[in-house]
């Protein structure tokens, strides 16, 4: 994919800072008060601090970072909406930004009128939109609604219309910001199809997203940004892993502080002996669960594993012979060899149930998060499947 190395976007030492007014200093009165009291009336905030990178022709370049890391500011600076204090952005070719879908949409106008208005903002003239109007309507599946006012559209219909116009935009370089985050699953699928198409057409794309799946699937290069500085530029796998790893730390931290505050009665506690979060497929994940004897009933434990938020497997101790002794021995140990886990990040959840009626006594979500490393490009999803491709006569 990286055959040509002609740079099309060159970002050199960009610094961007904002003055955030305090106490609504938008009026002359507040300005005078501040002047008299010798206050500045604003604080300075620097979301981009000396950022430099290059995007080459045909790159599908991913930008990831936590909320507030400066990625949206970076995108707006690339789009020419913000002008940086120092440094410069050089763009070779026509650049079409999608900071948001449906820019300029007016609820009082009809769907048809909004197509022309939004189209004009994307750089199309009337005859160009005339030519693709039918296609836009067909793709948005809104044939019977085009003469209704936009305010009578559902939000899903609005997004569909906006997206249908957006994908018509012709540019050498496209900037996409979190467009993936809106809409239902069917809409996201349409987005992905569009990305695939862009990839085939070898357009240059800069994509800002939280979805590591999209980064790995589409991008050939990616960048992690943190606190307004570039942390790393590299292959999408490396960046996605780094980003996921950082997020695990945060989830962990916020959880522990929450627990301190709540002081909820807890019957069980889990102990993970691992100091690391990264595992190889040859490793075994093991942990122990203890209960604190405050329960009189017979109980059992259930462990579940999730991948991207979906629980894909669980195992309980109810039908395990050991469970009969759990009440007295207080501790159970669980061992999970990871050889059948694909690379990716996983969460472990625990729950405690009453044996007599399966009633849930306690649920402990995300007691542990871990990453399985190792790359097998032929596999995706959480678990290894046994099926494989072969020729018909072998």
């Amino acid at each position, binding site marked *: 994919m990286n055959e040509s190395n002609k740079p099309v976007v060159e970002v050199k030492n960009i610094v961007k800072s904002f003055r955030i007014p305090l106490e609504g200093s938008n*009026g002359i009165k507040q*300005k005078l008060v501040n002047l008299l009291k010798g206050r500045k009336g604003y604080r300075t905030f620097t979301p981009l601090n000396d950022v430099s990178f290059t995007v080459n022709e045909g790159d599908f370049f991913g930008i990831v970072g936590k909320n507030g890391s400066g990625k949206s500011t970076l995108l707006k600076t690339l789009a020419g909406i913000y002008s940086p204090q120092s440094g410069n952005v050089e763009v070779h070719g026509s650049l079409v930004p999608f900071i948001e879908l449906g820019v300029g949409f007016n609820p009082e106008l009809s769907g048809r009128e909004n197509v022309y208005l939004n189209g004009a903002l994307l750089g199309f003239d009337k005859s160009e939109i005339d030519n693709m109007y039918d296609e836009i309507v067909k793709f948005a599946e809104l044939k019977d609604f085009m003469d209704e006012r936009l305010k009578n559209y559902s939000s899903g219909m609005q997004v569909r219309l906006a997206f249908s116009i957006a994908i018509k935009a012709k540019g050498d370089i496209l900037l996409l910001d979190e467009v993936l985050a809106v809409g239902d699953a069917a809409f996201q699928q349409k987005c992905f199809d569009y990305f695939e198409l862009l990839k085939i057409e070898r357009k240059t794309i800069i994509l800002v997203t939280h979805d590591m799946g999209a980064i790995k699937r589409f991008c050939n290069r990616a960048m992690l940004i943190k606190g307004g500085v570039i942390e790393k530029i590299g292959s999408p796998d490396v960046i996605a892993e780094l980003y996921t790893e950082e997020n695990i730390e945060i989830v962990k931290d916020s959880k522990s502080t929450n627990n301190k505050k709540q002081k909820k009665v807890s019957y069980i506690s889990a102990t993970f002996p691992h100091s690391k979060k990264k595992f190889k497929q040859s490793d075994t994940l093991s942990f122990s669960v203890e209960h604190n004897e405050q329960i009189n009933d017979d109980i059992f434990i259930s462990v579940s594993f999730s991948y991207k938020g979906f629980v894909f497997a669980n195992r309980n101790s109810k039908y395990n012979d050991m469970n009969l002794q759990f009440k007295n021995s207080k501790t159970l140990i669980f061992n999970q060899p990871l050889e059948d886990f694909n690379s990716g990040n996983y969460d472990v959840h625990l729950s405690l149930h009453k044996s007599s009626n399966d009633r849930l006594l306690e649920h402990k979500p995300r007691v542990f998060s871990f990453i399985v490393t190792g790359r097998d490009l032929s596999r995706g999803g959480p678990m290894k499947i046994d099926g494989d491709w072969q020729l018909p006569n072998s």
Partner: protein
Amino acid sequence: MKLSNIFSKRNRVLLRELVVTDFKLRYQGSVLGYAWSLLKPLFLFAIMYVVFGVLVKLGTIEHYAVYLLLGIVLWNFFAEATNQGLASIISRGDIIRKISFPRYIIVLSTTISALVNLTLNLVIVVILMVVNGVDIHMSAFMFPLYIIEIYVLGLGLALFLSAINVKYRDTGHIWEIIMQAAFYATPIIYPLSIVIAKSELAAQFLMMNPVAQAIQGARYSLITHDTMTVTTLFNNVWFNLIPLGLVILIFVFGALYFKKNSKYFAESI
């Protein structure tokens, strides 16, 4: 703000679409719709005719009702261009924050909307001129020049006001007061002869206001040669250069101020 950019295809399309949208939205939801653009000046004329044509007689200018109507229509054009222009950048904050394009397109679109409205009003003025039996002179060819003068002044002020309004939201209130004072400081509803009777110097001073100069000039060219203009007041055509110079000065200053500040609109709105 290169001139070539103003006429680039993308900017032209955008400008057109913004003006059209503005016009569509103006009478959105009203039963009579676009007809209001014509009905409003017509009713204004009816009021002028009853108050100043029948009840109060101010001066002896012929066709006084049409004379008044033209003055008010031109003043309303100036007021609309500056008031709408002033608010335009703030009210279009949604697209400014999302897309990059020359920001002056927005101000240009609101002033052009005002120009479209003026054209419709002038249609009524012309009809009433015919009804009232106003003679058309060769001087009517001067009329468009006065429109251009008011437009350039309005655009220059709109550029300055819209940019400063991003910084200080008090601008709208201050401008409202200034416009109220300016309305009475301009000989629109009263004939200039009333001021001359008190003090000729005061009249000369009032006529240095470009809007006053343009309105009186427009009335002279279109309605009646009874109208006092800068030329007749000073007995010297060259005095017209002072208000004209002011227009150019204000436009250049407004445009430069706008250009300097427009880079930061997206983050300040």
